[in-house]
């Protein structure tokens, strides 16, 4: 079986093959591991990778998988199909959205403004921190969706570029 996960905007390919009482795993066509003693419970996955035992806490929520390994946290996303992917890319290119829920404190641009890559298009405050949302490219402000003083949700688009 082949699986694909996104982690920090990179896609990783995992190939899992059953061989007698273990799995042979190949990651990104390079690293190889022998996996044995696999147990999967609702919040714990344990296995030996090349004879080293791992206990991994996990929680699956929609297409995300939250994992904790020896204090390190990983959030893996199941690779989406092509349509979704290109849509995401498009959004990224033309839209500025808030990475987290918060208060929209400032929109220093107006429709029609010419902006450069990196120009601050909006400031969102969450947890006492002000976060400046930069323009992803040079362009012209086409649409402003949020209003100063409003709450915004995570991933809510605030400004669109032409």
């Amino acid at each position, binding site marked *: 079986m082949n*699986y694909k996960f996104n982690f920090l905007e990179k896609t990783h390919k995992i190939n899992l093959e059953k061989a007698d009482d273990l799995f042979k795993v190949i990651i990104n066509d390079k690293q190889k*591991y022998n996996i044995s003693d696999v147990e*999967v419970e*609702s919040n714990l996955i344990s296995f030996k990778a090349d004879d080293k035992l791992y206990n991994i*806490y996990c929680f699956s929520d929609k297409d995300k998988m939250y994992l904790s390994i020896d204090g*390190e946290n990983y959030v893996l996303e199941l690779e989406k199909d092509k349509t979704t992917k290109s849509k995401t890319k498009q959004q990224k290119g033309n839209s500025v959205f808030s*990475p987290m*829920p918060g*208060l929209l404190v400032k929109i220093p641009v107006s429709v029609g403004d010419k902006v450069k890559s990196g120009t601050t298009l909006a400031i969102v405050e969450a947890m006492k921190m002000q976060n400046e949302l930069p323009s992803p490219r040079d362009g012209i402000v086409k649409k402003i969706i949020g209003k100063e003083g409003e709450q915004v949700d995570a991933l809510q688009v605030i400004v669109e570029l032409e």
Partner: protein
Amino acid sequence: MFKKILIANRGEIAIRISKACKELGISTVGVYSTIDKPSLHLRYMDDIVWIGDSPPLSSYLNIQAILEAAKKTKAEAIHPGYGFLAENEKFAKACEDAGIIFIGPDSKALSLVGDKVASRNTVKKLGVPIIPGMAMITKDLKKFKHAAKDVGYPVIIKASMGGGGKGMRVVYNENELEKSIAAGQREALSAFGDESVYLEKYIEQPRHIEFQVLRDNFGNCIHLFERECSIQRRHQKIIEETPSPALDNNMRMKMGEEAKKVIEASDYTTAGTVEFLLDKNKKFYFLEVNARIQVEHPITEMVTGVDLVRQQILIAAGEKITLKQDQIKQNGHAIETRIYAEDPDNNFVPSPGKILFLSEPNGPGIRVDSGIYQGCDIPPHYDPILSKLIVWSENRNMSIIRISEALKEYIILGIKNNIGYLKRIINSKDFAKGNYDTHFIDEHEEKLFPKQEKLDIALIAGALSKQAGYTKSESDFQKASTMKSTPWQELGKWEICSLS
């Protein structure tokens, strides 16, 4: 003694304070904003009062609403915790006027320690070393230039009413001076509503070392030794320890006595912290007074055995401090790490959301002051602190190992957090050596992000979990994982190896 105290705060510190109250037989009133109704701190209170909408200005900073809540519930005193109104002299004054005891120094002392230039001058008179710099507020560029030449470059521009790094600018030569003053003034104005800035000698490789002091209404004053808080990110402490690896006993006793002098001179009561900078030549300078119980107070409690919140309450109730200075000992070593809802992989952007799974460490030498539970929502409106992990062990080396293991056992799934990042700092060689200053994070930035090392294992876990779901039947797995089934629900143990 008080019968009832209102706790004007939320999260872990509200719980910490409520526990101290209950141990003294005092009942507690909790307050909450709209979004905080399901928050953990309310479960520790004897009564609760809604004080306003979710934004802090409407609720936890709403002096009127908090005073009304206190009156309505007949609370005799208010504990402000840290942050919010903890060092707000207007609030202290409003409590005084309403006949409610503010658990902290009185408004006069707060006003004195709140103004940095004024407290520099007070402290200077006592003979406590201060960082060379300007003794008065001015806008005159000439005076700035003169002062900078006097103390020697590099210098630092600071906001007079400031804190948390806002309005600060380091200046390396006279050419940069004017621009930096203007920038500092703009930032100070927007952050504190006051554009006053002043100038000090910039201390290179400074360590941040603070002393905990208690003082009662009868003039009895003791210090409880130091806390080293040099591990900071964007001027926010994230790891604290005591004893400091930088001090020997002579310096420790000397600085402790100086700290007491500062507190006494301000006629300051209850618990306060005197912050110092220590330069690379082990010269120390007075920095400022923190007029509140501090986030990092537990490490002092772990090594001295003195309950600081309890002492605060007792002093506010008019009791005398019964502990004598020579009874206070430092026993062993303690470290605290602050657990934040933030994403170290994405510029530490705050990460509010729902905690889907939680397992906190416990066992020998481990203390968790927590404000969260499995299933709770972390709102975006407040400080991202979730909890504090504190450990004690016989010595610094064993404490480092203990907190490193405890961080591994601290599982928070569903929101991004800084646990792995803290662990990487704790496990770094320079931290182990005790060889660090306030620039540690900046200087080690690259080393602190070697996060990929267990990515392969994470990917394998992800694939196995999918595989298990697949062999079990895709729909079952979907249900199991996306319907958010119980952690205790047995989806069966999928013995994958026995499937072909």
